[in-house]
């Protein structure tokens, strides 16, 4: 799977993975986020548009709405289980 390199970001309560090789920069996830904790990244997506990244790891509540809103499955959000912390 060339081009689907994951960019993993460890947040206090979980993990946020984005695949710039799939992100087309539509911004639907940014607007869907109830905590407004995503923003454009320095990294470019598949169409040369900015990919996304979480800017504020503290406010993210790992609801995963951004992953559900992504038409390209470019986002994965996993919440740490209670015992793992």
């Amino acid at each position: 799977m060339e081009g689907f390199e994951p960019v993993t970001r460890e947040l206090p309560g979980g993990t946020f993975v984005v695949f710039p090789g799939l992100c087309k920069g539509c911004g639907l996830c940014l607007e869907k986020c109830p905590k407004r904790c995503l923003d454009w990244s320095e990294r470019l997506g598949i169409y040369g548009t900015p990919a996304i990244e979480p800017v504020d790891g503290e406010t993210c509540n790992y609801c995963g709405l951004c992953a559900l809103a992504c038409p390209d499955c470019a986002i994965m959000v996993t919440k740490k289980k209670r015992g793992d912390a």
Partner: protein
Amino acid sequence: MTVKPAMPESWRLETKPHKFCPGCGHGIALRALGQAIDELGIQDRVVFGCDIGCSLLAWDFFNVDSVQTHHGRTTPVVTGIKRANPELICVAYMGDGGGYAIGAQHLVNAAGRNERITVILANNTQYAMTGGQMAPTTLPGQKTETSPYGRDPEATGHPAKGPEMVAAITGEDAYVARGTVSKLPQLRRMMVRALQNQIEGRGFSFVEVLSTCPTNWRTNAKDTWEFLEKKMPAHFRTGELKVPAAAGKDEDGKKAVH
């Protein structure tokens, strides 16, 4: 361990990222369908038919047998496949232009005969592939290429309500629902029930999906969500319109929780 994208198993990885525009709702609608196919474990039995328009860009989307036809003819083609080999699970995927305008007679007749197929129709309120012309589903006042002053219901009528029409003409054992790409889990459950209805050989299954088209709506991400979640439901109510009496019950005959 390499992290893989959370795509449905039935998606064809070599063709990703898919060919749809950034922000296109087809990706989410087909994700729901892929998840439903995975959930039912029917990937080796599915035949996927796509129509002309943006929906044809899904011709290599799934790792299942696919066929592409024009102008709503997906419904009769898929009907023929189903009649020739009833073991297969046949899905026709089309847009609102193909299903409600050019190919409306095929949808009407297949629904009237209560064919045992599943039709999934993405409604984005205009003809997207040809540049955003007015379609039967265009909302009153909506500006498109061919209605630059907004759609006038006096001259061109009100938005077509496909699921309501299909629910009125199908038999008792049809499944008819309208979902939206802003609610993926609900849409997935609708797809599962639509496929289940066909697997059990009950009757016609129809799911309309309210979809997005930022390219032709000329909207940014915020306005895209607003159009999809505020303006479209004012004319198109989401939910299940028709559920067969036998469906939605588990083996003990109790009503299943959905």
